[in-house]
């Protein structure tokens, strides 16, 4: 009995020892390859004079790994009007398309073109690059895959024109630091990006696989007068409408009075 108890105590101690050693080893392994990331903002305030911002992302990664930085919002959906030919030669709106699982902001930057550095499955899993995004989104109604591709390309063109989508390569600045590399990149944060939550993610890639990721949230929100006006427009439309009308009437009369005084000769 006593002997059995001793054996089980020994087993428990051995098990704990193995666990601790494994945890220690794991920690060491991770710390040697650990991907670090920091962004200069986690909060962007939209005030009256806001005209976009700059988000700089920097950190360090194991030397030799390729890096990809993605800034995106949560997936949402967007309904857009599509133009087509009516009566054979007149361009006009011919219906609507619903784009589902689309982020409102989607910026990708890489040390190299992600297509050349990662496997397709990995790109799909993490939705990296326009091709992966195309496979990720749903567009309705479209008749076939070709039509989906065509309208996805139009969608990208539409988003790129407002600086909300971009895929850029070889824009991450890296410098070797021992067995590690430091990286940094600056993104021009578009003023068109609506208030909301965004995620900045850095992927480290080795042997065409994503080995590590690090991420940070950026919150964009309206403050001050901008916030008060936006809230009032949304939550108190009647009062907002009346104030807008009264001020317009007042401005019209006011300018009329000024001209009457100044332009009495006419």
């Amino acid at each position, binding site marked *: 009995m006593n002997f059995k108890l001793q054996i089980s105590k020994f087993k428990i101690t051995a098990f704990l020892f193995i666990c601790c050693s494994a945890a220690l080893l794991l920690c060491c392994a991770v710390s040697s390859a650990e991907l670090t990331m920091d962004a200069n903002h986690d909060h962007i305030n939209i005030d009256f004079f*806001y005209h976009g911002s700059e988000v700089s992302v920097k950190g360090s990664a194991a030397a030799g790994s390729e890096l990809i930085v993605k800034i995106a919002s949560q997936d949402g959906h967007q309904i*857009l009007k599509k133009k087509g030919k*009516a009566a054979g030669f007149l361009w006009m709106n011919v219906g609507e398309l619903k784009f589902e699982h689309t982020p409102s902001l989607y910026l990708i930057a890489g040390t190299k073109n992600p297509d050349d550095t990662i496997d397709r499955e990995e790109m799909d899993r993490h939705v990296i690059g326009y091709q992966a995004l195309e496979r990720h989104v749903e567009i309705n109604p479209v008749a076939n895959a070709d039509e989906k591709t065509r309208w996805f390309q139009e969608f990208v063109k539409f988003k790129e024109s407002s600086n909300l989508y971009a895929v850029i390569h070889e824009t991450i600045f890296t410098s070797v630091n021992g067995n590690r590399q430091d990286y940094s990149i600056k993104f021009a944060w578009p003023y068109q990006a609506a208030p909301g939550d965004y995620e900045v993610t850095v992927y480290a890639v080795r042997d065409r696989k994503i080995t590590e990721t690090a991420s940070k949230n950026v919150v964009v929100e*309206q403050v001050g007068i901008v916030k008060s006006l936006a809230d009032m427009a949304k939550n108190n439309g009647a009062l907002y409408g009346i104030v807008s009308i009264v001020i*317009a009437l007042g401005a019209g*009369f006011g300018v009329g009075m000024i*001209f009457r005084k100044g332009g009495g000769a*006419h």
Partner: protein
Amino acid sequence: MYFYLPVALTSINILMPIGLGLAVGLLSGLFGVGGGFLMTPLLIMMGIPSTVAAATDSNQIVAASTSGTYAHWKVGNVDFKMGLHLLIGGFIGGLFGVQAIKILKEMGNADFVIKMTYVLMLGIVGTYMLIESLQSKKKNRTEEEESVLVRFLKSLPLQTDYQKSGVTHSALVPIAFGGFVGILAAIMGVGGGFLMVPVMVYILRMPMHVVVGTSLFQILFNCIEVTFLQAYTNHNVDFILAVLLLLGSTVGAQVGAVFGRKLKGEQLKIILACIVLVVTVKIIFELTLTPSQLLSQAGGH
């Protein structure tokens, strides 16, 4: 300097809306039109979502037309009685127009019908005004040529003397034509100034200077209604953008009104006809040239 627009959710160089307001206000004070045909597409080009552009434009027109009406009223060029009758008609017409859009949408291809009606109306009105003004400039038109129409109008009940305009009509005439313009304007999603001005000039036979003032007066009330409905139901009015636009447009309307007094009625008609024709040609180009982008934001006109 840039300002952020809280409803349009974009940033804009303040000189652009002020300059645009000035130009459109000038047209408004000169010709008695709201100028939405010019303002809305230019705002969209500046990156304002189409729904916000149209709604904010109506808020801005409230200011510009107040300023313009005031300037014309000072020199006795607003016929309030006529304006009121046109407004009653326009209001009733607008209600029918909204129903007509619903029916068109159910029939499908509504956009096609609306665009075609718009182009045809602009083209016909512009051409007619241009030819008529050029001819009358040459021969100094003699009185009352369209005798059939005139006799019919004179035979209607409720004959009213519109002193400011110097004309006598049945009160039903401005109400009916106001209603007709109201239906078309609602279908086409425009203010209708470019239709109302020719109706007042050619059918109601009002002098051009009174037409401009009276048109602005009734546009003012239409746009108050539209602004309120847009703010209340669609939350699409951007107050900051409207203020920037009205800084220019209220001044522009005054300058336009002063400048308009120096021009003859026929000259005003010729310039307005040319502007309407230029807009027609622009829309025809838009319809036939391949657009650079095939997608646009939903919800606008």
